[in-house]
């Protein structure tokens, strides 16, 4: 049985429908990438999974339990943590406080502690007393990832963690991915950087206009297939 799965998931913003019956699955320990152009529905999918957007109860299941209608804090307490798009650090909290607040609803005794995060991203320890928003974009992204890990999640949702960062910084951040997975979390990453996504993911879903248009393992997918799934068959 999949750990986290969606079943004909639809989502609306007022009149506008953003998702049209999306089915994806995530197994324990797996890393799944979701790629697609701007406006394909990737972020909407992650916002639904994390509970920021509320859906039909049965449209999202986590360990067999319907969680589609649960609010974000309840989803989080069950072990699904999110690194939101745009980092979203709390401006009135220091770096260390941003990390500590991630442990607000800490579950059990996992391996992620403040020390473990500082070990993963040593620069954060140096800047622990700075305001979170005083950091560079890459460092802010490290805080956002560390903050999500502090709850010892079973599922980590990462929304566009490379957005707006220099390639060298992106590489540094993705270097942490294997250690994050060793910590036991299954990961869903939403990415526009296809190369980066294919490198770390076990499986890939490609989305277009609110639908999954292609899925498979990185080795299965040809450039042509991805191109077609990205921009439509006619392109």
């Amino acid at each position: 049985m999949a750990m986290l799965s969606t079943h004909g998931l639809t989502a609306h913003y007022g009149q506008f429908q953003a998702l049209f019956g999306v089915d994806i699955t995530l197994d324990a320990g797996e890393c799944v990438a979701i790629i697609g152009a701007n406006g394909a529905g990737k972020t909407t999918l992650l916002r639904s999974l994390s509970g920021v957007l509320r859906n039909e109860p049965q449209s999202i299941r986590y360990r067999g339990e319907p969680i589609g209608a649960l609010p974000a804090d309840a989803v989080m307490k069950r072990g699904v943590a999110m690194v939101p798009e745009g980092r979203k650090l709390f401006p009135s909290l220091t770096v260390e406080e941003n990390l500590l607040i991630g442990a607000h609803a800490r579950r059990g005794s996992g391996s992620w502690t403040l020390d473990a995060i500082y070990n993963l991203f040593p620069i954060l320890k140096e800047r622990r007393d700075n305001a979170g928003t005083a950091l560079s974009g890459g460092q802010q992204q490290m805080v956002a990832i560390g903050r999500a890990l502090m709850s010892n999640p079973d599922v980590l949702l990462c929304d566009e963690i490379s957005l707006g960062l220099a390639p060298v910084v992106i590489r540094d951040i993705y270097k942490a991915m294997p250690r994050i997975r060793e910590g036991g979390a299954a990961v869903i990453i939403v990415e526009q950087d296809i190369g980066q996504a294919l490198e770390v993911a076990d499986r890939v879903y490609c989305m277009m206009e609110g639908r999954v248009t292609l899925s498979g393992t990185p080795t299965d997918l040809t450039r042509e297939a991805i191109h077609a799934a990205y921009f439509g068959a006619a392109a």
Partner: protein
Amino acid sequence: MNWIDTIVQGILLGGLYALFAAGLSLVFGIMRLVNLAHGDLIVLAAYLILLIVSLLGLSPFVAALIALPLMFGLGYVLQKVVLNRVLGEDILPPLLVTFGISVVIQNALLQGASADTRRLPTGDVGVASISLGGINVGILPLLTFGSAVAVILILNHVFYRTALGRSFRATSDDPTTASLMGIRPNAVFAQATGIAMMIVTIAALYLGMRANFDPAVGPARLIYAFEAVIIGGLGSLWGTLAGGVIIGLAQTIGAAINPEWQILSGHIAFLLVLLFKPRGLFPRAFD
């Protein structure tokens, strides 16, 4: 006329106004809610203390201790059941609902306790004074000011040094992202209003011991509180104390010149600050 005496009295009166204002400031800081019933809640708390005093024959200080958790509960429930439902982008619903609550509290008190003025019994504390460098200072005003400083110290400690304060600040910054941390914004708001109502209880204790009160005095307390908050700068608790002191000073100095000018002088001090420092004396760096 002894000017030094007047100034000391004014500063100490400012402590009372800071107590009125601290709860308002806290609630606004966390959820951007301006509670127009704040003054009436202070008066309600004063009646609650009075009720406990007369039912159980306790000293007002002990009665206030009993009232603290009751007022916390009232604030929690009020926020959870009513105010959380009207928070949002539109400022109109919370304003109108709290305005309605203000009218309801005033008239409920009028119905339940009549329009007669009341006072909390103070015993010896009410008249005791000590001499500080030649000036006689009342124990009660000193206690009020000391309580205001203590409340602000404790609030600052909670806000900046505890997990609860961390969740307050995070929710204030961004409720949606806070919920991704497992925080329930609505519960945080309810706790914050509960705490604000505990400060209101302390303010009510001194209001009731220092002066007469009746069901209609709430709105004026709200106005003093509001002026102190704006003068101090939104979100700064020490600024709120400074704002309270400025209103207190202006009122006592005004009253010393002409008793009819007491209230007006306080308002004019507020308008002057608004004129020259529209963001207050100690504005927060970011907002």
